[in-house]
């Protein structure tokens, strides 16, 4: 008798938890994969495709499915790799050189407006709509919106686009790290 009560009680508890869990699974269902958003937030959003994917989000999706390693983002460089490793609790890797080299100085594209023939090919290539112009009219780049992805370089038939470093202004100047006794020690 005692055993029966115990079994029934446990079954009841298990059953009710099952119902609660079942309800919660439907009620609080998460659409999509939230880890993708977190990875995407770390990636620099240059949309350059140097990682081999068609933009930052596809790469984030691939990372989340463990289909791609975390070291394929040259614009992000070391800091992005460290942040990704921290988020995903994986080992920090060296940047894969096959994907490209990391440049500490951010670059923007500049159109040599004298030579632009107005072919619109770069406009179609720009992943962030940072190029302004129309057919047979001069194009120009909205520097503030340019991510420096270099995707506009190959389609240009007259090679009139240059990558130049962003000029540092007083507004974005920052204090350098003080020199310490034993050099800068990273954690």
């Amino acid at each position, binding site marked *: 008798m005692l055993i029966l009560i115990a079994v029934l009680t446990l079954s009841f508890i298990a059953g009710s938890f099952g119902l609660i869990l079942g309800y919660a699974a439907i009620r609080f269902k998460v659409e999509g994969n939230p880890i993708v958003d977190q990875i995407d937030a770390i990636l620099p959003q240059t*949309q350059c495709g140097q990682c081999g994917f068609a*933009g930052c989000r596809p790469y984030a999706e691939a990372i989340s499915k463990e289909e791609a390693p975390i070291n394929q983002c040259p614009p992000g460089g070391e800091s992005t790799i460290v942040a990704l490793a921290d988020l995903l609790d994986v080992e920090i890797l060296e940047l894969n050189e096959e994907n490209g080299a990391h440049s500490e100085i951010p670059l923007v594209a500049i159109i040599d407006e004298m030579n632009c023939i107005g072919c619109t090919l770069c406009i179609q290539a720009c992943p962030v709509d940072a190029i302004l112009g129309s057919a047979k009219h001069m194009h120009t780049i909205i520097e503030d919106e340019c991510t420096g992805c270099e995707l506009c370089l190959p389609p240009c038939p007259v090679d009139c686009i240059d990558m130049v470093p962003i000029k540092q202004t007083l507004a974005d*100047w920052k204090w350098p790290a003080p020199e310490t*006794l034993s050099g800068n*020690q990273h954690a």
Partner: protein
Amino acid sequence: MPNSVYSFHGGLHLDDHKSESLTQPLQIASFADELILKVSQHIGEPNTPVVTIGDRVKRGQLLAESSALVSAPVHAPTSGTIKAIENRSIAHASGQKAECFIIVPDGKDEAIDVEIRSAESTALDKAALLDQIRSAGIVGLGGAVFPTAAKLTTANQHGIKTLIINGAECEPYITCDDLLMQNYASIIFKGISYLQAILQPEKTIIGIEDNKPAAIKAMQQALTESSLSNITVTSIPTLYPSGGEKQLIKLLTGFEVHSSQLSFEIGILCQNVGTCAAISQAIDKSRPLTSRVVTVTGPGIKNPGNWFTPLGTPVSHLINLAGGYTIEKPKLIMGGPMMGLTLKSDQIPVVKATNTILVMDQQEQEIAQECIRCGRCTEVCPVQLLPQQLYWYSRTHQFNLTESYHLFDCIECGCCSAVCPSHIPLVQYYRFAKGEIWDQRRKTYKSDRSRKRHEFRDARVAKQKLLDEEKRKLKREALAKKKAAELAAKEKTEAESSNSQNADAVQAALERVKARKKAQQVDPKNTTDLTTDQQDQIDEADARREKNKVDDA
């Protein structure tokens, strides 16, 4: 007299070195051969020049402005010619250059024509006062150079109960506010009266450190002479950094401005005495902010003193006025020894923020040792932060942790660095960490924007593709319909033509059958050679048939 004085945490008793520059009375500096006037001299949106190279300008003429709310225009300090508008070295830690007007004074010092308000004219309303303050280019002269009109406008929206006038001047060596109070107390009170008119505070407290007895006396004298009410002049103990906004508020009111809070959120507003004087000049004399009192002092200068200095005066000119250097390798600091900025040359101009030019001896910088965790930095921190923790996290680049330890509440007063027995440049670490965090925020902002733009573009391209597909589909369908219709029409005509052929064939066949039938036709012979009987029977049957037919009908 003074209302009870509260205290703030930490702070340092420093050698004040104020007497050196107080030996001479306040003087008026002559114009340098060339004034280097920075185009933007405030915190906020940058100015754009409104004059061009070669223009002749008069004192008080507008040279650069911005339409943004948080901005302050710049005016010509004297009459002369704009020789150039170019990038010159300025007082900035980066050593970078910034856009400056180069003005060659003509020596006439002509002023633009202005309407000077007579004392009898009706009092200006709040908006008019604020407008005057804004167009005069007045910024906080305590060092923050935040546009005063913008500050007052925001503060007014919150409602100010207590107005605090900052005459603490807590940093060693600096005496510009001291001399201003000693000599121009009535002008300062005039400025305070305008601030009171704008803010309608319940009370006004003027805080002055007790190492300036002459200034306190002068201010009290002026107070009794003025008709202003609800004002107290309070002497506060000399303790660095009592002149910090939040520290002074704590000292005078006992209220603490919390982390990430602004003083006017608790109904308190601080203004520097220099700013008050500038407000009075702007409203009573319609004179924009084109000069300020600058202390030139330090062990490396011959005759330390204070000068009314036109903005844009190169530091070298002030040094000459003060008798020149007395040491071989002077170290120039703009500001005080605790928070000042080391200048790379003496060709750097005076700006609205310049309160002091300090000439120090080049000292061997102490070599930083490892932190011994003595905790003295924590004891002196006036903001009650944990400087040691902030140091570790800044050094190991754990910036998110520095933020959770309230790095941004650090006022960079330098107390922690001053007491550190290991000579660790703590403030440098905090500045570095702040810069990195700001940089990270800028990057996040940009990448968020890029993400949005990319997603928008993707969506637009996808939509276009869908629309194109739809269009193609419709066109395909229309084409298919057209083809089908054509086909149907063709088939119909074909069918028609084939129908007439068929009819002929049928006719022919029928005729053939007829002919064949005709050919095959044999007359029946059972009705010939009939007997009468037979004939009768036939007739009878015919009659019956006939009758039946009739009956049927």
